[in-house]
């Protein structure tokens, strides 16, 4: 039809709200596109960005975080066709949009559902409330590059955590395109950092990083990789979500497990008296 030469997109990393190439200068070929091949240094840069974003994001009001997650759903809806063009099933794209909406609503409800007033046997006001764990490393599901990705990222960040995500190695394009959605949704830079490349190369650095507080191994489907990452995570006692024992139906009700896995419960004791 046209004799116009198309402008191709460069698929880069998403770190600290910016789109850098891998510092290593490497890339790998996916669906005729060169995709950045992240390195150990990229992992470290992403962790620094994620840590820097913790204070602002966890300190934002729950109402504000909920609005931003809802905004992500709005932006994703607007790019629906683009994801279908990347090969995503329409039902998966729709479910991914709806998942952002679902988690958006949890921002100001999880503390009410997961926190408690404790009737201690003494004159104390005693309250337990959830707080974000901090920086969460995420090995995203390799086989569900958009819906699976959204399903692991949204529950981690809605409560105030920040994440470093290792995107699906074989199908990274939806992750990079999702980064463009995130970058235009008022999500502060550094809350979500997305690295493309080889999980076997970057995963061990992320799992062993001493400034990462938790790791989600949902996408580490190879048993020996998952075991070695969990073992490395023990160095600073990261909270670990193991890969599911059975294949995950990403269209099913997600439940609260992925929210509560990255929450710490703080109990405050305060005397009552006049």
């Amino acid at each position: 039809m046209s004799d116009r030469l198309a402008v191709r997109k460069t698929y880069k990393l998403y770190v600290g709200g910016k789109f850098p190439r891998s510092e290593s200068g490497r890339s790998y070929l996916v669906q005729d596109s060169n995709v950045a091949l992240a390195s150990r240094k990229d992992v470290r840069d992403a962790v620094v960005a994620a840590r820097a974003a913790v204070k602002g994001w966890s300190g934002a009001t729950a109402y504000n975080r909920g609005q931003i997650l809802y905004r992500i759903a709005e932006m994703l809806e607007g790019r629906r066709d683009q994801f279908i063009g990347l090969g995503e099933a329409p039902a998966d794209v729709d479910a991914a949009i709806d998942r952002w909406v679902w988690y958006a609503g949890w921002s100001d409800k999880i503390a009410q559902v997961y926190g408690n007033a404790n009737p201690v046997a003494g004159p104390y006001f005693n309250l337990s409330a959830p707080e974000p764990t901090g920086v969460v490393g995420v090995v995203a599901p390799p086989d569900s590059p958009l819906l699976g990705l959204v399903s692991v990222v949204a529950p981690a960040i809605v409560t105030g955590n920040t994440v470093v995500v290792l995107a699906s190695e074989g199908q990274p394009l939806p992750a990079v395109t999702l980064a463009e959605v995130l970058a235009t949704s008022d999500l502060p830079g550094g809350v979500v950092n997305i690295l493309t490349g080889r999980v076997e190369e970057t995963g061990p650095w992320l799992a062993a990083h001493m400034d990462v507080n938790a790791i989600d191994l949902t996408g580490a489907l190879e048993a020996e990789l998952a075991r070695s990452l969990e073992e490395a995570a023990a160095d600073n006692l990261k909270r670990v979500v193991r890969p599911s024992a059975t294949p995950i139906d990403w269209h099913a009700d997600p439940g609260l497990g992925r929210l509560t896995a990255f929450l710490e419960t703080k109990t405050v004791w305060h005397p009552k008296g006049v």
Partner: protein
Amino acid sequence: MFEYAPAPESRSIVDIKPSYGLFVNGEWVDGENRNKTVNPATEEVLAEVAWATEAEVDSAVGAARTAYEKVWSRTSGRERAKYLYRIARIIQERSRELAVLESIDNGKPIRESRDVDVPLVAAHFFYYAGWADKLGYAGFGPSPRPVGVAGQVIPWNFPLLMLAWKIAPALACGNTVVLKPAETTPLTALLFAEICQEADLPPGVVNIVTGAGDTGHALVSHPGVDKVAFTGSTDVGRAIARAVAGTRKKLTLELGGKAANIVFDDAPIDQAVEGIVNGIFFNQGHVCCAGSRLLVQESVYDEVLASLKRRMALLRVGDPLDKNTDIGAINSAAQLDRIRTLSEIGASEGATQWSPPCSLPDRGFWFAPTIFTGVTQAHRIAREEIFGPVLSVLTFRTPAEAVEKANNTPYGLSAGVWTDKGSRILWMADRLRAGVVWANTFNKFDPTAPFGGYKESGYGREGGRHGLEAYLDV
């Protein structure tokens, strides 16, 4: 200090046998390896206990598995509740015996075992008993399932209380347990086994295997264990986290701490000093959530220190069974060594050591209450858990600096805040990265209040509704 007449609690209520076996499948079995447990206040040998071998741990896990599949998982919540209530009642009825035995084996003052540990043990069983038939209302779905067989390893600082924290929620949720008490404090767990028999608890629901690190390792790495719960040091916790990597075992860890106890210039100083003393000298400082770093606002530093030293001079160190005793014996020679070593390091790194004049008994393991002043954040005594009656004192000027210093640790178990200003308490509580924050109080515990750490103090919560999660398949 004026003299008190001795007021010793009689130990005649306790009948310590010369030798104990393992409690497996509701029966006592002789262990292959045997070791001695001593009274740390006198170094007197109290009894011989078994140190369970791998094969013996295996048979205990087997008994727990059979009891889980054939009996306990088929016992209704209502019936499980009644067993737990029954156990709670027997603990109350035999509370004097338990308290005296705990003080003899552990070295803690009878005033504490009698007034804190044992009442909390009974309260814990009462609290979780009530959950057993209400699990569908706990927020984990309509009919949450138990995990299976729990392998539980507990420390020596609160032997019976840690047993209660582990066993009560596990049984309430429908799991069976194999519990390993610490090698220096096995006796109250063995008495608890008798209580299980007295309560007619079905055989195999609770199994007690005594022993040291090898026994614990055999237990947590046993493939028949579905759930591992550990309270103890961060190093051992790390090793356990590595050992369960790649398995489907559920894991909760309650590890070390280096809590900041923060005193602002508007705090009621006398109350704060009581809180500081309670925070670090309660249970000889053998407390994972001890307030071992005192952060004092500069403007009241002199006043707080003078008052603290005055108060410390009144602390009575000595016979754990004497009802006047404030500070008992250090639990073991090994722990005493560690406390001495770290204290020597504190002095050699440039901090100033002070203890009140204090005569210590000739036999047994003792360490005088001690404070270090002039401590910086880089000093090892400000970074490492000493687990003894040793307080490191630092100062701060602004609330932001207090938060910064309090959080400057890999641990995150607890923190204390002393101020008259309510809004400041809440501001501080929001920013302290710790699982428990005590405002104008310290070292308070309750079965309804979740307890557990941030960061390298471990994960999971014990106590409260949250404490159920560790023992449910959710």
